[in-house]
């Protein structure tokens, strides 16, 4: 269908431009306003040192993280929804975010003195711990939901339960932190592009980019899996193997996102749904569209969060939750 194809390319181009627009907007907004012309000047190397510092050291790493995490979470949601055949699957609801957050807090609690003082090797180890936590949570959920196969509904309910368990375990450690760290951990766990600097980007970005590209390559496997096990097996696909690879991919993306930006919930649910409405269920189209949508939503939320009130920055995860829960509830009411 050439018509559908050109429409798809137009859509991708549109989303791409939207992302660039948001990117430029968030570069020039903030407590220190830098006009677009000045931004351009600074990028060309003609800005003053203060502008360079603000743009390159403070704003740019955060924006890069927002872009990548937005994509990673959306892709993770797409894969989870496809593999579990459940429209409401999402790393936040399934407890994967909380599991990753739990292990990260443990790591900070035992090996680092506070949330702010992570540096050097500590930064590069953080994603590793987040991944361990994400896989641990996913394993627990999968094992507990297993009863002659994994039924989608059981998976979701078990995910909610495991989520509650990790939250309780988290509180156990959080109350032993001093109040400052307690609040910081709290905020970070609900999703915050926290102390984003280039070290952080270097520690997480390459992995995220790699996994996102790999999942683009895996879209046909996803298409086959959504046909249902019987049909997929009939087509000669190694169903269990593909399912495991895809699940690992989704959990890996979610874990990395938590390492980079805390436990942002609902984004992995909302972006895929919007994409499905726009381009239909075929993953080779739906996945890139939802990745770009996710990036745009997270950038937008970041702009709102850091500019809405002058007195304090509102963490991006909070904005995402407030904006996307009404949509989630709408979906919940519609699904049978």
């Amino acid at each position, binding site marked *: 269908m050439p018509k559908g194809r050109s429409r798809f390319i137009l859509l991708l181009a549109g989303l791409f431009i939207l992302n660039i627009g948001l990117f430029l907007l968030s570069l020039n907004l903030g407590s220190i306003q830098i006009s677009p012309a000045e931004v351009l000047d600074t990028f060309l190397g003609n800005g003053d040192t203060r502008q360079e510092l603000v743009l390159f050291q403070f704003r740019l790493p955060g924006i890069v993280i927002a872009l990548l995490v937005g994509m990673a979470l959306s892709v993770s949601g797409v894969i989870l929804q496809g593999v579990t055949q459940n429209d*409401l699957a999402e790393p936040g*609801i399934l407890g994967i975010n909380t599991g990753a957050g739990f292990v990260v807090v443990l790591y900070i609690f035992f090996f680092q003195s506070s949330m702010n003082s992570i540096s050097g090797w500590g930064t590069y180890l953080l994603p590793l711990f987040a991944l361990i936590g994400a896989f641990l949570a996913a394993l627990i959920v999968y094992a*507990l*939901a297993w*009863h002659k196969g994994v*039924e989608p*509904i*059981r998976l*979701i*309910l*078990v995910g*909610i*339960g*495991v989520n*509650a*368990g990790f*939250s*309780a*375990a988290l*509180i*156990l450690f*959080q*109350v*032993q932190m001093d*109040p400052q760290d*307690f*609040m910081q951990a*709290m*905020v970070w766990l*609900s999703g915050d592009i926290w102390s984003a600097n280039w070290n952080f980007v270097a520690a997480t970005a390459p992995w995220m980019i790699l996994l996102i590209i790999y999942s683009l390559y895996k879209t046909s496997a996803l298409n086959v899996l959504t046909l249902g096990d019987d049909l997929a097996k009939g087509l000669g696909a190694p169903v269990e193997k593909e399912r495991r690879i895809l699940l690992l991919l989704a959990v890996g993306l979610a874990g990395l996102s938590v390492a980079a930006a805390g436990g942002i*919930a*609902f984004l992995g649910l909302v972006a895929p749904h919007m994409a499905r409405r726009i381009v239909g269920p075929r993953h080779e189209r739906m996945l890139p569209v939802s990745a770009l949508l996710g990036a745009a939503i997270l950038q937008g939320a970041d702009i709102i969060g850091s500019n809405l*009130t002058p*007195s*304090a*920055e*509102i*963490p991006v*995860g*909070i*904005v995402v*939750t*407030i904006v996307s*829960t*009404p949509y*989630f*509830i709408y979906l*919940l*009411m*519609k*699904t*049978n």
Partner: protein
Amino acid sequence: MKLGEVNRTSHEERPKRVGRAAVLFVLSVTGLFFSLGWSVALGASDIELSTVWQAVTAFDESNTNHQVIQELRMPRAVAAALVGGFLAVSGAVMQGLTRNPLASPSVMGVTHGAAFALIVALVFFPSLSNAGMMFASFIGAGLAVILVIAVGSFSKGGLTPVKLALAGVAIGGMLSSLSTAISLHFQVAKQMSFWYAGGLANTNWASVKVLLIAGIVGLLIALAISKSMTVLSLGEDISKGLGQNTILIKTLGVIVVFILAGAAVSVAGTVGFIGLVIPHITRFLVGSDYRLIIPLSAMFGGLLLVVADTGARLVNAPYETPVGVITALIGVPFFLYLARGERGSM
């Protein structure tokens, strides 16, 4: 309603069940009495049980132990018993009204609703009295319950357990995000941290008094509708067919939940899962008659929270472990057990 225990005992003779319930009631009252004594006696400094008894019967103002008992430990233990009982009863009422095994204050975002209302009150009406704060938390708790039930009821396929749980996650998530946003904006985040940790450390006789008032009203209404609720829990059609005013019963039930859960949350913050676990255990023991379930749930819930709170003080003494962690330790496996049994459609 899955979890086939609901009508398990219906074939048994009614007197037999009432007899068993009476025995259980006496046992739980005794258990509660002793656990209260134990809870008051144990702590940062251990006090002899006989001293506890003396502090109650022959209070001596010059005795520090007596002071500690009267002013710190006793109100705390009594508040724990009341909060636990309230949470259990509101869980039982929710499960009865929605005929949904997962219905309970923690699953339905009640805590987040109450915390949200308290933050709003704290920011916009800072001069509000304690009673006013309590009232705000009633409203918040009620708001969350109404939203969750509304989302579930107006959705395709009705209020299934999964829908209820997910609606609870969504509404709870939204309300707690709003609270965090407000508290960061108005810089009252520190006061918020109490809510997340929860616990009974700050209770005094004043909070016990408020709890008692809420408890008398809430429990009386709960008992008054308990007979109708038994019928309603068999099905809406049966209830209507027998000429019951289901709307009135449901409204009263929701009011009970407002009052009891709101009061409990405003005193103790986040204490999860009591309202989920206790009603199930009670139903398993005495069958589906809410005239028996409600008083017994109250006793069992009180007993559980008194024990859990004492444990919370002793596990890592002299530091306190949040009591919500202890109840989650019991509640999460139970929730998972219920979830595994769940096989209905969305």
